[in-house]
Structures are given as structure tokens and as C-alpha cells.
């Protein structure tokens, strides 16, 4: 964040509601050319976001959380997600959601957030970083209540085919050892549709076989953030009221499909792995720390 204080002013653009999202979605879905990676310098702000308990309940059901007054942090990511779409769908963005692979995500819940609390959501993009396969873009979200920051999140996307000048940076490598899963998740073919309905992520790669094939996958993939949420839901009653969850998305999960899950308390936090069903290779690695 040090660099951006020296950058020129980050203009805040206030988004009034979600209705104008369609165009942005369409643009965000249009594959970009092999242009140098460029992202908007402004941040987008949604003021006074009133949470919808019915949608939260539906989200909880799809992801496996218990409906409580306090919401899961991954739900707050879902609330910030339309701003990801808008930001990358802006005219001055050459990075598109389609073709951008969500590779890492870190979120911190600073205190329990009640479903009754109205939120201010702000998202901006950090300058793209070079990577051997393209450009890395961090979308940084912050959610506050009154003036108190209650949630922060960094989503790292890899824009394949895009490029940025400079020496390629590496993503942190998550340690993984093969192991026998403690659980198997049997994921049905309609999971992508169900998660789409509660998350509002319209990427057809999660719901359409044709679109999945177009991107080189034999079947649709479940959203990485569903896998993240479902992994977090396994820990639910053990989670403290403030923590950081970091995930690396190692390889996509195809639908329908079966994946393995295991978790272990480690160093005062938890390490969780969503793996192939034989436990040999990781789909998602998650670290949760108080």
C-alpha cells in the first residue's frame, strides 16, 4: 500500500446500485486482446449496502453455513464482488474477468459483522504485476460500518495473455503434502447454478458445458469462492470472532465431481486442503489464523 499513497489521487466513483451491472458484466466477460495489462485507477464505492437476510440464508444453505446474526466473511466477499466486475468491466481496463484466473484470495474479518448492519464497500485495483503467464492483478476490497473497517479482502487474478513490463514475480507457494482425505464432497452438476444464484457471479464457465469447453475444460467448474466458503464452513464453530483466511486456488474443480477435504489445527490456526479424491493433488489450500 506504500506505493499507492505516492500515486496520484485515487478517484472514488460511487456506484448507486447494482442495476447498471449488466453492461459491465458483458464487457468484463469479453475476452481481452493481448494488450498491456491496464486497470482503472479509481476505486468503486457502494454506500449503505443493506444486507438481505433471505439471500444470506440462501447463501448459507448453498455453502454449508449455519444462519446466524453474524455473517461469514466469504459472504462479504460476495457483496463486494459486483465491484470487481464493474472495475474490470470499465472502459479503461484491459484485464477481463473472463480469462482472468482467480489464483489467490486473502480476507480478514476484523470483528463479527451482523446481518442487520449497513455496509460501505470499496474496491480498487492495485497496479498489475508481471507474471510468467501474464499479469497479476490484486483487487483490494474494504468493508466498513460507520467508520470502522470490519472486513478486508485481496483477490489476486492472473490475467493470462496480458503482459506488464518488468521481471516476473512469483506467487507464494503453498506447502502441500499428499494425504488421505478426511471427507469427500460429492458435488452435483447443478452446484454452479445454485452458487451463481446466491453469488451473482454470472461467469458461464461455471454453468455451461459449452462455455467450459470453449475455455478448454471438459465440464463446468465450481466457483473457487464456493470451495473456499465450503471449506470455511467446515470449521464454523471453531472460528474465533476475528481471523484471516488465505487461500490458494491450485486447480479447478469440475462439476459434477468428487473432491477430498482435510483439515488440521496447526500453529494456533487451521490448515485445510481441498484435494483430488485420492488426496494426491490439491484443488485449494486454505490457512485460517486468528
Amino acid at each position: 500500500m506504500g506505493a499507492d499513497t505516492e500515486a496520484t489521487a485515487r478517484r472514488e466513483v460511487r456506484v448507486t446500485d447494482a442495476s447498471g451491472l449488466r453492461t459491465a458484466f458483458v464487457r468484463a466477460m469479453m475476452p481481452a486482446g493481448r494488450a498491456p495489462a491496464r486497470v482503472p485507477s479509481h476505486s468503486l464505492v457502494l454506500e449503505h449496502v443493506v444486507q438481505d437476510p433471505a439471500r444470506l440464508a440462501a447463501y448459507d444453505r448453498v455453502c454449508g453455513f449455519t444462519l446466524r446474526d453474524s455473517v461469514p466473511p466469504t459472504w462479504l466477499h460476495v457483496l463486494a464482488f459486483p465491484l470487481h466486475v464493474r472495475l474490470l468491466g470499465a472502459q479503461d481496463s484491459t484485464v477481463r474477468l473472463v480469462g482472468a484466473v482467480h489464483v489467490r484470495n486473502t480476507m480478514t474479518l476484523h470483528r463479527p459483522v451482523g446481518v442487520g448492519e449497513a455496509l460501505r464497500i470499496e474496491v480498487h485495483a492495485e497496479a498489475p504485476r508481471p507474471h510468467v503467464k501474464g499479469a497479476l492483478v490484486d483487487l483490494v476490497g474494504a468493508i466498513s460500518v460507520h467508520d470502522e473497517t470490519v472486513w478486508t479482502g485481496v483477490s489476486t487474478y492472473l490475467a493470462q495473455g496480458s503482459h506488464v513490463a518488468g521481471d516476473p514475480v512469483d506467487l507464494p507457494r503453498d506447502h502441500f503434502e499428499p494425504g488421505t482425505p478426511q471427507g469427500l464432497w460429492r458435488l452435483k452438476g447443478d452446484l454452479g447454478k445454485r452458487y451463481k444464484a446466491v453469488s451473482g457471479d454470472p461467469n458461464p464457465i461455471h454453468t455451461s458445458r459449452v462455455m467450459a469447453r470453449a475455455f478448454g475444460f471438459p465440464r463446468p467448474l465450481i466457483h473457487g469462492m464456493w470451495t473456499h466458503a465450503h471449506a470455511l464452513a467446515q470449521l464454523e464453530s471453531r472460528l474465533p470472532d476475528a481471523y484471516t483466511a488465505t487461500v490458494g486456488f491450485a486447480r479447478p474443480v469440475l462439476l459434477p465431481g468428487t473432491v477430498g477435504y482435510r483439515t488440521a489445527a496447526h500453529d494456533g490456526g487451521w490448515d485445510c486442503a481441498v484435494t483430488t479424491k485420492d488426496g494426491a493433488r490439491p484443488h485449494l489450500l486454505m490457512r485460517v489464523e486468528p
Partner: protein
Amino acid sequence: MNHNVVVVGGNRTPFAKAGGPLREASNHDLLTAALDGLVARHGLAGVRLGEVAGGAVLKHSKDFNLTREAVLSSALSPLTPACDLQQACATGLETTMYIANKIALGQLDAGIAAGVDSTSDAPIAVSDGLRRILLAAQAAKTPAARLKALARIRPSHLAPQAPSVAEPRTGLSMGEHQALTGARWSVTREEQDEIAAESHRKLAAAWQEGFFDDLVTPYLGLAKDAILRPDTTVEKLSALRPVFGGPEGTMTAGNSTALSDGAAAVLLASETWAKERGLPMLARIVDAEIAAVDHPGGDDLLLGPVAATGRLLARQGLEVSDFALVEIHEAFASTVVSTLKAWADEEYCRSLGLDGAIGELDRDRLNVTGSSLAVGHPFAATGARLVPTLAKLLHEKGPGSKGLISVCAAGGQGLVAILEAV
């Protein structure tokens, strides 16, 4: 091996009408909330309890292990085992007796008995999609919005049928059964509306004086029972149209319980365990009796508790007048009236194989903090609501005070239990 079993305390969510403020919560969500509040009230976070028994009457097939799953979501130690039981509207009292009996036998030191029902999340045997569309239509404010919601219905939504709320063997709904019973026992509209108005008045007074402060934990922003209408009067109730028993019927939406959402839990323990942990002991579980009637043969469906009461009192050598307080579950106001008339009816009681009439109840001892008509009746939760409520009331009256709980249930069954203040 016979250990004293005490009621340590209880907790429940506020109760609400189906489709009301708790409509988004599933049985799992509600039961977890009730357990978490109970755990917090007694400082049991992370504690491994002997067992938790819970149940729901309306259950999705995926909830086959509902109670254990709620335990895992709760603040209890994940090493706490659990089981599901179901005995229609008596479930919460039956889970209480199940845990109490195990404690009495020395199999458990302590356990939780619970019950939950969400009629908003009822497993209608149609697709989840249709249920949600119907809920949306129900919630719609304008006819246009309702049509818009209903327009989303697809043929695939419609295939199977909702399970009937009727008794399988008679084809009559519970209300229709009670209408027959009410007519047989000459229960008047005025008697019923009087009971309903009293239920609301007493419940409102109990909330007002903070009686439920240590029995209820708010959930999803709802802090009090949402069905309660403190300003209800006999006059207002008398204006309602009958819903059971035809145009001449006396049973209305006002003197019948509403379909409800909610969960309740009771902490039960051996006296030794409660003392060791320094937890309160409100009342001892003395005894219980279950009975059933031959409703397919024409018996009154909801008068099952009468035989149970007669047999239980005979076994314990007690009279009606020995009870400082009595809780009779208000399935319908008419049920309460006909039950009390049956208690006093020599001939009827003898027909049940009793030695004579059970006796007359001093109405001042009945449902003193209101009951299901005002609180609501999430089927399986009601028993687990009644036990801590009565235990606390008896405890306030002083050691040795006795109380009786009477709950009727589908299938012509009735479960009654005796508590005695510690």
C-alpha cells in the same frame, strides 16, 4: 441406580408465525441458535455433555441427523453425541424424558433435550424451488408482484403432493378432530376466546416483568415472541370467523395455535453434576406417563393426556390439588377446555380405566405465563419450552412445589410429566 434428575435451565429462540421473522432459518439454524444460547447461559462452551436429544416433526430427509449436526455447529464440544427423536407435538417433552431417564439410570451426568420446528422450511414434498416461489408469492405486497412470483412456477415444480396435515387413519385434520371433540364436550366459543385472551395477557405480562430474560435468547434480530398480541381481548377474538367445524363452528384462527417457527432446549443433569459445576437446580423431574386413545375407533384425538394424567397421579398418589401449577399445551383453546372437562367427568374417566374423576383444576394455576396460543407452537419445541418455564415458576414458588405438564400429540397420544421444585 436411581439418580435425581434436575432441570438446570432452558433456552429458546423467540417463536414466530410461519413465514414471519424467522422464515429464512432452517431447523438446523434454529436448533443451533437455541443450543448456543443455552451453552452461553450456563458457561458450557467447549464442554463435552453426555448427550443431546432433539427432534423436529417436519424434517427434510437430509436432516436425518439434525441434532448431532446442530451440536457440531454449536459451541459445545464436538465430542458431544446426539440423537433425533420424534413424537409429534410431544417431541420436546419426550426428549426431556429420554435424557432424564438416562441420567436417572446413571448412564449420563448431564444432557440437553431439545425440539425445533420450522413450518416456513417445511419439507413439502415438492421441489425446494416451488416452496420458495410460494413463499415469495405469500410475501408479495401487491397482486402484480404475487403474479410475477407465481409466474416462475414450472411444470417440474408441481409433480409430487405436499404431505397431508390430516390424521392418516381418519382423513380429518387436527382442527377438524378437535371441532368434533369440542362439540361433544359442549365447549363454547366464549370459553375458547377467554382462554386465548388470557394466554396473550399472561404472556405479555411475563415478558413485561422480564420472566423470559433467562429463558429466551434473541435470534436474527427478533427479541420477543412475534405471535404475541398484548392488546388482544375477548371482544376482538369474538369477531373472527370460524375456521374449523363449518359455519357454526367455534374454532377460529384466534383460538387455534398458529403454524410456527422456533426451537427450545432444556439442560438436564444429575443433582451431583449440577452441584459440582455450581449450576442452578430449578426442579426435579419426578415421573412421566404416556397414553394413547383409539381415535380411529371414534375417541377424541387430542384427549390422550387425560388417561396419562389419571394413571400418573394414581401411581404417584397425588391429587389435582397437590399441584401448585399446571401447564396444559394449548393446541387449541378447545383442547384445554375439553381436557379440563374430561378431568372432572367421572364417567369418562372410568371409561379410561381410572378409578374415578381426576378432579377439578383451579384455573388460577393453569398456564400462568401464557401458552401456545400466544407463544406459538413449533411442534417439537413446545415440550422443551414448557419444561424450563414450569421449572422456573415452581422454583420461584419454593422447594417442594409440584407442577404438571400435559401435552397432546398427533396419533391420539398424550404425554404428561410431573416436576417438583428443588
